[in-house]
């Protein structure tokens, strides 16, 4: 092996490594705090100084999934002989469970709207991207830019006419409305990213297929799609993460039936006062899938966040 002037020295590597590890630890602290707070009891969560060592409890998770009320003799009449474990936890604080909370519904809304909008954005985005990549489309550059420009507008500004439009169409606070809206917003990302992925597939494959007697559609379906599968899959995850995280539209255009988790989690509140362990529990359940996806995506991350402008 010959000596390379560009290879950093061992000392440089050590220094760089230590600094980056320090940064990583600092940047992880809030995330670790979210996860651990979810397993704290209420008093532990607001203890001073902040508690690093504590007895873990699932109280926060029980609070997250239930609606509770303070036990008052006038109301609690029927004896509950067989108390399940979660009721026992709640009773210890002098409360009783009156029913499930809305969290699981909101989480489920996030799943439905996230996957629904991702599906449509990918289907439409893939076909459009293929056409942009392979055909001579009039005004192609303008159209591509136009598609991108939809992402530059502040969501609040976009939401004003959408609110009116949805109201007239009865789409406010519906799954269909939110899927439609997120599909539109995600389309720009899907078209740009997938366009880039398809551009990278050598056109010769298709030409060969066409010569073999495939129709154009078959060539698209049987040759291009499999080749672009990884790219499309990572694009889909990006779309999903966007829909999953989106807040502004959700808070303005949904109020209950179709409300997703991001506007809901900050409004989780205890029997009296802010219930931080429950909020942290909800945040943990909500953030973990994205963390996993991020790790899966790491090879395509750069491309996804820059609309395909930067590729490794």
């Amino acid at each position: 092996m010959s000596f390379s002037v560009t290879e950093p020295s061992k000392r440089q590597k050590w220094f760089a490594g230590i600094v980056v590890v320090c940064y990583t630890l600092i940047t992880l602290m809030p995330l670790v705090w979210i996860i651990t707070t979810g397993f704290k009891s209420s008093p532990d969560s607001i203890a001073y100084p902040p508690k690093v060592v504590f007895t873990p409890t699932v109280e926060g998770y029980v609070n997250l999934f239930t609606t509770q009320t303070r036990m008052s003799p006038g109301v609690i009449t029927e004896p509950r002989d067989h108390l399940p474990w979660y009721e026992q936890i709640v009773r210890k604080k002098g409360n009783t469970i009156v029913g499930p909370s809305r969290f699981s519904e909101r989480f489920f809304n996030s799943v439905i709207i996230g996957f629904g909008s991702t599906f449509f954005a990918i289907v439409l985005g893939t076909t459009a991207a293929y056409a942009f990549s392979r055909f001579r489309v009039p005004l192609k550059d303008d159209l591509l830019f136009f598609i991108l420009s939809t992402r530059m507008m502040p969501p609040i500004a976009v939401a004003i006419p959408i609110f009116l439009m949805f109201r007239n169409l009865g789409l406010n606070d519906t799954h269909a409305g939110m899927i439609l809206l997120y599909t539109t917003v995600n389309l720009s990302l899907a078209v740009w990213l997938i366009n880039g992925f398809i551009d990278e597939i050598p056109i010769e494959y298709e030409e060969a297929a066409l010569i073999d007697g495939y129709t154009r559609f078959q060539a698209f379906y049987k040759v291009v799609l499999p080749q672009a599968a990884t790219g499309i899959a990572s694009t889909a995850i990006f779309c999903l993460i966007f829909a999953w995280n989106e807040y502004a539209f959700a808070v303005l255009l949904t109020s209950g039936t179709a409300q997703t988790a991001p506007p809901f989690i900050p409004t989780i509140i205890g029997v009296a006062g802010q219930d931080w362990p429950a909020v942290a529990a909800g945040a943990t359940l909500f953030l973990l899938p994205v963390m996993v996806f991020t790790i899966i995506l790491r090879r395509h991350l750069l491309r996804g966040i820059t609309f395909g402008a930067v590729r490794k």
Partner: protein
Amino acid sequence: MKKSVLAFSAGLGMFTASVVAAPTANAEDLTLCWAAWDPANALVELSKDFEAQSGHNMSFEFVPWPNFADRMLNELNSGGKLCDLMIGDSQWIGGAAENGHYIKMNDFFEQEGIDMADFIPATVTGYAEWPKGTPNYWALPAFGDVVGWTYRKDWFERPELQAEFQEKYGRALDAPQTLEELKDVAEFFQGREIDGKTVYGAAIYTERGSEGITMGVTNALYNYGFLYENPEKPYELEGFVNSPEAVAGLEYYKELYDCCTPPGSSDWYMSECIDAFKSGQVALQMNFAFIWPGVESDPNVGGGKSGYFPNPAGPGGHFAQLGGQGISVVAYSDKQDAALEYIKWFAQPEVQKKWWEAGGYSALNAVVEDPGFASSQPYAQTFLDSMAIVKDFWAEPAYASLLLPMQSRIHNYVIAGQGTAQEALDGLVKDWNEVFEDEGLK
């Protein structure tokens, strides 16, 4: 969808029992929307009787106070069908009536023999009427509420503190009678060491985002002589909103904030004030009366350790900010009949009595005038005294447009310390005049 959601929560292994709710013949799924707070959870429990009697199924949509108005007015303005029943805030009534969000209740009341004269007058005016002072009803008073104060009786009773206070102020350390006295007490406790912990004077409303600081500052403004408009000439603001008395009231609130509140209490509303009081941080707490049942049963500050008093008088009068809500039927609901059934059930005296026992402030005279009422809870008398002196914010259809500038003008002065009280209120007059001009009222 609904089914799968329930299955989902059941899958989490928690509520297998609640999934199987057998529907009866014409059973409806009613959704009631309210703020997420103690009384709402009590109502869930109370409503189980209604479910059993009527066969209807109740679900609830509760939103915390800081987001409540935002979310629900958005829902109403979008013509949404989420809520069949709405326990909407008192100030919404004008807009909800004029824009047809709520259905009018007069016929229903007549038919069912529900008489508004049976309810506390202030709540009827505050929660049900639009235009105010006319017998046009859009809601049934559901939850009486008013700003009052909670104090640490156990601290007040300590002989050494009493002696020190007596020496310093020349009077006994007791629940304050005037706003000035309140400030003295708060100042007395501010920064004091009690049981090895530093404590502070008072927890007061300072929240910026929704209505918090307005609901707090009005308790000082009213009592120094602030008026919303010329009593003789509606919508004339100059010299009433920004009168020298009003300026003094606003200055008082800022002084109270500056001298006697816990550090970092710059964006506090109901829940933050509760937390501060329950954790033993403060001697006094401003809050709506709804918290009192919770304070009384709290392991740290309940069981006689806390006392209650109405908002103290000021040089210009004796008032307290009205809270509380009426229950209405949303005009966009497809299940109005079932929703009215719920109101009919709720209006029954027995149910109202149970409501009070569960921690809900009934507005029914029969409940509050019961001889045993005042002594039924340590805070019952204070509640009655407070309800007698209530005053509310604008309930105009343009209420939100009036509230927002008040929030920012007051917060800018009291919390951020920008400008003077006079400038803040002059600015408010300008903002409000603009709103009324836009509304074509001026």
